[in-house]
């Protein structure tokens, strides 16, 4: 993509922001009033910015003693009624997983930013990767659904951060915002203001008589109304499997019913949750599937290839989990082959292979700590096009 031509016309509210700063500003715009975090490269700018922004709006910033505590405090604040967020990177994301599972199981809205850096373990703190794609979906133990969003530009980080809060609050679920170190620390101009959606979504709070209230009973929409502490409901919240009354149960029917509802809550809303971008897929012989900075490089490669007569297109999941599978099937319906460039050994490719079972899917995998260059993708497209012609 030609970034310069995509710039919005200068206006009073245009700012030069890094991805992490855009995330922080979007959080307060979305109504976030609590952030707990722990310093970790390359996500620390989000915490730093929010330590300045939150006091301005009567919010609370706290730096906790570790990553686990930060996730726990975010859930605690959300249970208290505030829109809440934490931000971290690989090692910290690993540490947060147990409590992330608690948020999923107890249905506590929260937003978790994971800026992807090279791994495994301490890995490459200042270098990009996209190797937490599968961890974002499956990182905590047990079966649970969640939403993960994968923005590809600073402007999109701003928009998707706001959407992350809206989805978390609407559906009472943790939402992971997953982006790589490149766009986290890349500075681009972003037009803030009326053109962008503002978080106005409010959680469904319990109302009505306390005597009849069951905290995990949901009417047709599968989303239980949440009790606000102090409002007279005096309920119990637990990470144990629980019945509609919120108290622990191991009754097989109650357990099955509750977990089924948890999944149906998101499964039944794919039209609202799925989001993606397609570029030139209509006539593409090669469809590229990519996220984050790899998708940006792919946009440039596609232009170069098209100029040379190779018809390539891009399918870019913005909602990464649940994966927008119906949209990918449609976008790749006429393609002869699919290319998945990603900064890992082939995680997104696994999902693409599952969705397009039987179709020829190739990977372009770079896990050296470098971003994939447009020329590398263009070369892969050209080679793949020769193979399938």
């Amino acid at each position: 993509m030609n970034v310069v031509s995509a710039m919005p016309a200068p206006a009073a509210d245009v700012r030069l922001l890094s991805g992490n700063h855009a995330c922080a500003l979007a959080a307060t715009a979305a109504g976030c009033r609590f952030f707990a975090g722990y310093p970790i490269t390359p996500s620390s700018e989000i915490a730093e910015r929010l330590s300045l922004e939150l006091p301005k709006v009567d919010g609370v910033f706290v730096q906790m003693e570790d990553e686990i505590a930060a996730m726990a405090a975010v859930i605690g604040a959300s249970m208290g009624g505030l829109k809440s967020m934490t931000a971290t990177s690989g090692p910290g994301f690993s540490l947060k997983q147990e409590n992330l599972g608690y948020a999923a199981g107890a249905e506590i809205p929260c937003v978790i930013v994971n800026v992807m850096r090279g791994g495994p373990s301490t890995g490459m703190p200042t270098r990009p990767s996209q190797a937490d794609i599968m961890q974002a979906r499956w990182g905590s133990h047990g079966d649970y659904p969640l939403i993960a969003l994968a923005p590809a530009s600073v402007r999109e980080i701003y928009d998707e951060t706001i959407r992350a809060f809206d989805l978390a609050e609407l559906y009472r679920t943790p939402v992971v915002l997953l982006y790589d170190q490149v766009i986290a620390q890349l500075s681009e101009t972003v037009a803030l203001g009326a053109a962008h959606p503002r978080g106005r979504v409010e959680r469904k709070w319990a109302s009505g008589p306390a005597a009849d209230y069951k905290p995990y009973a949901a009417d047709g929409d599968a989303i239980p109304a949440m009790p606000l502490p102090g409002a007279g409901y005096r309920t119990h919240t637990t990470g144990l499997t629980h019945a509609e009354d919120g108290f622990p149960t191991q009754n097989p029917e109650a357990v099955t019913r509750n977990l089924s509802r948890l999944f149906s809550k998101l499964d039944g809303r794919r039209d609202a949750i799925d989001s993606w971008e397609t570029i030139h897929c209509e006539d593409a012989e090669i469809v590229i599937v990519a996220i984050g900075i790899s998708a940006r490089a792919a946009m440039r490669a596609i232009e170069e290839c098209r100029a040379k007569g190779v018809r390539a297109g891009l399918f870019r999941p913005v909602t990464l989990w649940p994966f927008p599978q119906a949209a990918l099937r449609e976008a790749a319906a006429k393609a002869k082959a699919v290319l998945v460039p990603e900064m890992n050994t082939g995680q997104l490719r696994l999902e693409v292979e599952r969705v397009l079972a039987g179709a020829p899917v190739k990977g372009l995998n770079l896990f050296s700590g470098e971003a994939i260059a447009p020329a590398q993708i263009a070369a892969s497209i050209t080679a793949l096009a020769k193979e399938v012609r």
Partner: protein
Amino acid sequence: MSIDTAAAFDVTDYLRKQMMPHFLCPGCGHGMALRALLWAIHDLEIDKDALAVVSGIGCAGRLSAYIDANTFHVTHGRPIAYATGLALARPDLHVVVITGDGDCLAIGGNHLIHACRRNLKLTCLMLNNEVYGMTGGQVSPTTSQSRLTTTTPLGNAEPHFDACALATAAGAGFVGREVTRHVPKLKELIKAGLRHEGFAFIEILSDCTEIFGRKNEMGSSPEMMMRQKSELRPSAYRDTVDTPFRANDLPTGILARNDRPEYGAAYRSAAAAARNGAR
């Protein structure tokens, strides 16, 4: 101590009757700790709607479900961290943490020391029964040396933590200890903790009779209770200067106090000053 209020206090007013009978073993001390907490809540006339109880995992962690309040049963070792978020978000609530010796000192030890240092208003009750009871009786950070547990079949070779000395050293604004044998005294200590404007840490010496007591042939529940203050659980900081383990010298009551500023109020006042244009 006012025995008079005992007449007015009916513990069932504060319990979730649908959760009875409770699941604690016969002879377990945790019920007395729970009674003392609810009695303290009653004496201080804390509105149940304004009471939030956050508990971790283990026998102590299960107590929150019995309390007719806003209750949160969270992950192992993390109740102080969850409560930190809740209390910062909702300074209008009385936030009480119920935790056990393993929950608080082993897996959750980091949260304890930083909560002591940070001094956010929370009342933390650590029920110390010297053992991981719910998982079947494994050694904990407070198990006395030489004790038998399912993971120290040869006798515990590790020294135990003195949780109150730890909390004091970490800067807790209020540190106290009491035994479940003295419920009215324990109630008064909890009341003092609840009134403290800052982080209050209270260690409650409880007994695991069914698992720990039986394994170590410590006798009946009353016999175990009578030894709660004895040499069985010496004070770590005394045994560094004294010949260890004099009988009946375990200090109880309020052990440490300071008047460091409460974190939540300090944060909010700095934020308000910044909003008003001050630095």
